[in-house]
């Protein structure tokens, strides 16, 4: 069984994430996804898009002179949901970032920078490629066997 892909194009602006919340909520209802899967998908979309806005377009998309659209897609297969986040920001492979050690004290706790760590924890499979001038991050979420 394969449903989708469903796509959504947003601007690289924080306010656009409200559309992502609404869109993924509708997909979860249509595809009968468990609440924990919706949580993981929404978390990963938020972290990925926030990173694109904060780091990929740090100088502002107008100044950077690049297309600031972010292309989101989601597809449901029998036992998994796959999402892709694609953008035109400068090349960056988030999977190349070294995981941070857990803080032992509050002084060691870092403010910010948890996005990639969270994506690694909540998605079962992550892949990155640079293709056609776009960063493409794909994450896959296994569904419970009873969740068909």
């Amino acid at each position, binding site marked *: 069984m394969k449903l989708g892909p469903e796509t959504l194009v947003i601007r690289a602006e*924080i*306010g656009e*994430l*409200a559309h992502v*919340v609404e869109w993924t909520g509708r997909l979860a209802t249509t595809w009968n996804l468990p*609440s*924990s899967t919706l*949580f*993981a998908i*929404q*978390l990963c979309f*938020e*972290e990925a898009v*926030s990173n694109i806005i904060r780091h990929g377009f740090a100088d502002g998309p107008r100044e950077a002179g690049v297309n600031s659209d972010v292309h989101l897609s989601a597809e449901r297969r029998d036992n998994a949901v796959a999402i892709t986040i694609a953008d035109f920001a400068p090349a960056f492979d988030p999977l190349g970032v070294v995981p*941070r050690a*857990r*803080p*032992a*004290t*509050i002084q*060691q*706790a*870092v*403010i*910010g*920078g*948890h*996005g990639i*760590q*969270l994506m690694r*924890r*909540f998605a079962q499979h992550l892949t990155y490629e640079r293709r056609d001038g776009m960063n493409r991050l794909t994450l896959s979420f296994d569904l419970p066997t009873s969740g068909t």
Partner: protein
Amino acid sequence: MEMRIETINSNVTKIILKGRLDVLCAQQIEPHFSAVVESQRKIILGLQGVPFLASMGIRALIIGTKTVKSKGGRMALLNPTPDVEKVLTASGTDTVVPIVHDLASAIAAVSA
């Protein structure tokens, strides 16, 4: 995002949050949350009504905890949902702010 404040045992402050702690909503409560953590020393943060937590929410929690601890106080996180607790443990937040699942444990954690 809504925030309500209760006082327990005359010296413990319980902040009850209701709503998503995502990038859209976390910034809205930050000034109000900051005002409480600046002035109180024993803070329980009730998370039962928070269905979603992402990086910006973690940022607010860590900044709040750093503020409270810098003034000699303590904070505890009460009753996060399972998914929210998974975010807290994945980010390492649980190693610097205790997560508890009943009010008595929360009071003990901030009063030690």
